């Protein structure tokens, strides 16, 4: 294990971008936890006389149409946005890894049909599917999580399947069989631990995607409802004022989204380098 850490340190030294991304991700988690105490203003309370103020020393990111401090709202929104993404990715990862590995290991017609289904699903406009699901299940935050988890699922299934497929006939899997291991054990104790590192990369990349998806759903008015601070809603509310030149209402939540996603994506790329420099793209 210490060898892995050493190797990680080596990669981080030679790859400051990943180190920066890791720092950024840590910072984001800290903000998500401590935002209510960090926010300089009340994120919900409206203050109409101060509406639509451009960024200033008091209001670092300006104020919105109700005079609420955009910066405070951004900080507080971090928790909700991260929570949605993390729980959605967590669910789809756990389900996808298990389903995918079992299909990949068992093979045969089951694997083939699951593979085809996943391919069809992936080529489908997943965002529309998520929209329909949220509309059908009810306009609530839990359902955003479920919908986002559902549309992430095909990626994990496919990934786990492919990873297991290349290993299924390797000597050490067959050795496990001739060593009397049950199929369950082979999948859970042999194959899963081996594909986890590669899945970790996928998780990190997917977190960014999940955040964008959740924000997109709130942008069109599904899921999170005002006045809850959430980056997608903030952009949607700001969109009305963009042609009037009030750019900060869109730009700052957009920036928050971008930086967050960037952090996770760069972290994912960095993880991939740490695990296998040949996979670098």
């Amino acid at each position, binding site marked *: 294990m210490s060898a892995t850490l050493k190797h990680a340190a080596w990669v981080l030294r030679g790859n400051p971008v990943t180190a920066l991304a890791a720092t950024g991700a840590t910072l984001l988690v800290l903000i998500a936890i401590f935002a209510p105490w960090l926010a300089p203003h009340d994120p919900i309370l409206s203050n109409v006389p101060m509406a639509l103020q451009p960024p200033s020393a008091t209001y670092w990111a300006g104020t919105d149409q109700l005079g609420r401090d955009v910066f405070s709202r951004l900080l507080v929104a971090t928790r909700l946005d991260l929570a949605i993404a993390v729980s959605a990715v967590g669910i789809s990862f756990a389900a996808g890894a298990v389903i995918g590995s079992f299909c990949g290991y068992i093979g045969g017609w089951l694997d083939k049909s699951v593979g*085809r*289904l996943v391919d*069809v699903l*992936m*080529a*489908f*406009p*997943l*965002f*529309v599917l998520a*929209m*329909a*699901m949220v*509309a*059908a*299940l*009810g306009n609530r935050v839990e359902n955003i999580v479920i919908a986002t988890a559902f549309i992430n699922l095909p990626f994990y299934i496919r990934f786990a399947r492919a990873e297991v497929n290349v290993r299924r006939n390797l000597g050490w899997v067959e050795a496990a069989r001739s060593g009397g291991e049950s199929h369950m054990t082979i999948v859970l104790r042999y194959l899963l631990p081996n594909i986890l590192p590669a899945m970790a990369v996928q998780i990190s990349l997917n977190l*960014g995607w999940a955040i*964008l998806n959740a*924000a*997109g759903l709130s*942008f*069109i*008015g599904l899921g999170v409802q005002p006045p809850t601070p959430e980056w*997608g809603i903030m*952009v*949607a509310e*700001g*969109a009305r004022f*963009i*042609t009037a*030149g009030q*750019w900060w209402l*869109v*730009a700052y*939540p*957009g920036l928050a*989204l*971008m*930086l967050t*996603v*960037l952090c996770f*994506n*760069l972290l994912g*790329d960095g993880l991939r380098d740490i695990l296998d420099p040949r996979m670098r*793209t």
Partner: protein
Amino acid sequence: MRALKSVGVRVGRRLVASVPALLGVVVFTFVLMRVLPGDPAVFFASGPNAGQAEIQMIREQMGLDRPVHEQLIRYFSEIGRGQLGRSMTTGQAVVADLRERLPASLELTLVALILALGAAIPLGILAALRPNSPLDHVVRFVCSMGVCVPTFVSGLLLIYVFYVVLGIAPDPTGRIDIFAASPPDITGFLLLDFAITGDWEGWRAAAGQIILPACTMALFVLAPLARMTRASMLAVLGSDFIRTARSIGLSRWKVIVVHGLRNALLPVITITGIVFSTMLGANVLVEKVFSWPGVGSYALDALLGSDYAPVQGFVLMMALAFVVVNLLIDVLYGIADPRVNVE
């Protein structure tokens, strides 16, 4: 000839194989739509004071009083007759609505895809030719940024910069200025129709309208395309047959273009197909931001209004588009790669 025949066989097999997937998609959305909250009959009744009798009549008219499986069979028989039902919000047949709006989405998606491919392939190749050079880092950085900015944000920011600040872009609403005359409907693609009629003024206006939403979309898909090009070019350049090509003394450009590029573009073909069919429907957000009258925003409005038929029609259309695009990709791939014909 042999290659053509085998491509034909593969296309046929693919068509047959796609039937269950299509059926599945139809049933799935049908059931999903039936779970939607709210009673559309109430929604579409004449007013809040509509009587029980009127609602009942609408229910019967929509077939909502029958069991679900009967409704499904009815729906299938309608599809067989080329009917997708009637939209309650627009009052038109869904087929007509989709036919009217599909060209807008297709045009936008195609322009965006051409922009994205035009930028992504050269960038990916250049980056792969000099891995870890400054250019490579720039390309990778642009790609990383591209996927991080949600389309609804980049679209709005583009509007702010080009419309509000610089004033060089037209009002970001729709495909064409409301006061401008639209061209005769020949293909439904405004750029093509204007070009056919020789109305270059109108062409420029339409191009001005499409450029911002197309760039917004292109920016978002640039990253996967460029990444894939770079990765596959790198893999090909490191392969044994490139070493062979060098060992017989071929010039550098011949090695790269003749032996490298053609092989490297094979996976790009596949991913382009996926990107296209996803873009077609998934860019609901771009259509919303730019008030683009496409199928995505149509489906979105219907969905938010509990209007079944358009959503089902839209999903079916997407599934069909998926099948068609996949067929095209298959044919292209079959021509480009002789190996696929053996299986």
